[in-house]
């Protein structure tokens, strides 16, 4: 689950503690950031931004959050969609009632509320593990969505039953609502993802991350070493739900524009879970790669028949897409059960030994 270069061993601690300790990774990430900030928003069209890139960034954020809980702390959750919903609905309630608070602050406050809800539904983790815990988080998923559907207060008794992003600005720029441009919303999502990814990296390589992994690997030994299971697990639930909550808020306020509870149903929870499994449990960057895979491949598959000039009805192509996509996931997991993070590791090893592989 947890990988690290064995070849480039660091004797100097400062170096070891860099966010990306390995040179290849640093170069790669720097390039990625340059492209993401400097190239993409200027070449991508509205469709690309709205249908592909913004959701990819938001799902990445949720996937990073879930990976902290499941990949690092070892607590399986199927409640991701619900925790995202908490963030979205909390943002809606706060910003419609107190429009003076800047929307960015509201996102963070809503993350805090999602964290509290996460703690509440993380309490069973003290007694139950693995599959049973997953079922308990499933209860959170259904209960929370049911509540948001049932109680009109959560959507301001709006007859359509939806929550809608009102126009909100930051430094005079429209970042939410119908008049916010796709470029601006892309930047907001990107900045959130980058900032929170750095924080996640800081967490997992420090004392908190180590205590999560210790609980994951061997909880009895961890406790005797002085790690308090209750506090540690609940902190993982809180931090993870915070991430998911912010991602949920972003998905309504900088992506969809309006949503009902269906946008956060169990399918979304599974989707985010697939992302971290495919990307690699216990890998922050893997979460993002997994999110890219799960968001991009279906779009490619949908467009593939047209691209190759095959006359297939959209209905049929949708079904083919699902079959191929499902098959691809299964195939990937058979080839490399540890996901893309592990493949990346192996790839780098090959590269380093090239041209003398032995």
């Amino acid at each position, binding site marked *: *689950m*947890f*990988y*690290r*270069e*064995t070849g480039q*061993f*660091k004797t100097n*601690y*400062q170096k*070891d*503690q860099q966010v990306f300790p390995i040179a290849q990774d640093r170069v790669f990430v720097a390039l990625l950031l340059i492209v993401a900030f400097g190239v993409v928003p200027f070449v991508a069209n509205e469709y690309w931004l709205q249908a592909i890139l913004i959701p990819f960034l938001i799902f990445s954020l949720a996937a990073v959050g879930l990976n902290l809980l499941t990949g690092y702390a070892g607590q399986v959750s199927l409640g991701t969609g619900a925790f995202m919903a908490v963030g979205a609905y909390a943002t809606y309630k706060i910003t419609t009632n107190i429009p003076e608070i800047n929307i960015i602050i509201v996102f963070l406050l809503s993350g805090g509320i999602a964290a509290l809800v996460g703690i509440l539904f993380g309490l069973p983790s003290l007694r139950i593990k693995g599959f049973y815990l997953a079922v308990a988080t499933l209860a959170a998923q259904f209960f929370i969505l049911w509540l948001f559907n049932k109680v009109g207060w959560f959507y301001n008794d709006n007859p359509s039953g939806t929550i809608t992003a009102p126009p909100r600005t930051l430094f005079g720029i429209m970042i939410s609502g119908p008049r916010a441009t796709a470029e601006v919303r892309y930047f907001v999502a990107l900045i959130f993802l980058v900032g929170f990814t750095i*924080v996640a990296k*800081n*967490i997992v390589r*420090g*004392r*908190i991350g*180590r*205590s999560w*992994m*210790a609980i*994951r*690997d*061997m909880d*009895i*030994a*961890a*406790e*005797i*070493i*002085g*790690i*308090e*299971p209750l506090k540690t697990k609940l*902190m993982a639930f809180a931090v993870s739900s915070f991430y998911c909550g912010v991602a949920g808020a972003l998905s309504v306020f900088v992506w969809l524009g309006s949503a009902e509870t269906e946008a956060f149903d169990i399918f979304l929870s599974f989707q985010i879970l697939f992302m971290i499994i495919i990307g690699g449990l*216990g890998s922050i960057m893997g979460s993002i790669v997994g999110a890219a895979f799960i968001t991009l491949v279906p779009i490619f598959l949908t467009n593939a028949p047209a691209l190759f000039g095959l006359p297939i009805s959209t209905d049929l192509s949708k079904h083919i897409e699902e079959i191929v996509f499902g098959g691809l996931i299964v195939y990937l997991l058979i080839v490399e059960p540890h996901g893309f993070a592990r493949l990346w590791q192996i790839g780098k090893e090959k590269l380093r030994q090239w041209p003398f592989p032995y």
Partner: protein
Amino acid sequence: MPLLETVGLSKSFDGLRAISNLDVDIEAGSIHGLIGPNGSGKSTFFNLVTGVYQPDPGSKIFFDGHDITRSPSHQIGALGIARTFQLLRLFSEMTVLQNVMVGYHTHVPYGFLSTIFNNSAIIKKDAETTDEMMELLEFIGLADYAGMPASELSGGQRRLLSLGRAMAMRPKLLMLDEPAAGLSPVNVENLLAIVMSLKERFGLTVLIVEHILKVVMETCDTVTVLDYGEKIGEGTPEEVKDDHAVIEAYLGQEMDDDEVRATFDS
């Protein structure tokens, strides 16, 4: 006053008395051996002291002036008891360095906010911890494997790492459950030498469970013998060696002196 003291310690599992009314005193600064046949309750004793199992009503456990009878494991660890497990229970996906870093856990208190923003104070503190832990790995001979996942170590290296992880806690009492099981004779010597020098260096008290009687006889100041959860003998290795009740229970038969000597010395 003993460092660890149990009074009337008992534990039953569905009617089976795994530990029965046990009074044990472990003196500060000593190396105390705990021996007995398979299933006599040695590991259960460890689990009771470290809070993994709850003892039966009426039991008392005192450590360093504290009543720890009902304390949760993490508090017991923080008070200064570290242990190894018969089945090691390493953090297998974490690296060797991370395994000992976690052991040092209770000694590096710092807040959540400073961690997530990784300020310079944290960087400095983490660097100090790492240096100290690398030194420990050096001492037990695992420094070269610091970046390797614990699951990739050999059996003997895992035993060393489980010792290192316990030592990283900077304990007052170190409890070792069959630390030499499965090691070759050379490695047993090596491990004992490490334990002895750690003891000297940190002024440790050591409680050791071991089936290799030669080890017990050579290293321990005091030996307690268990059988069916009861104490059937206690004293210096010499005294225990000469106690025929012990010999009979432990070895299952009456033997003449030559045979006894052969068993203990092999």
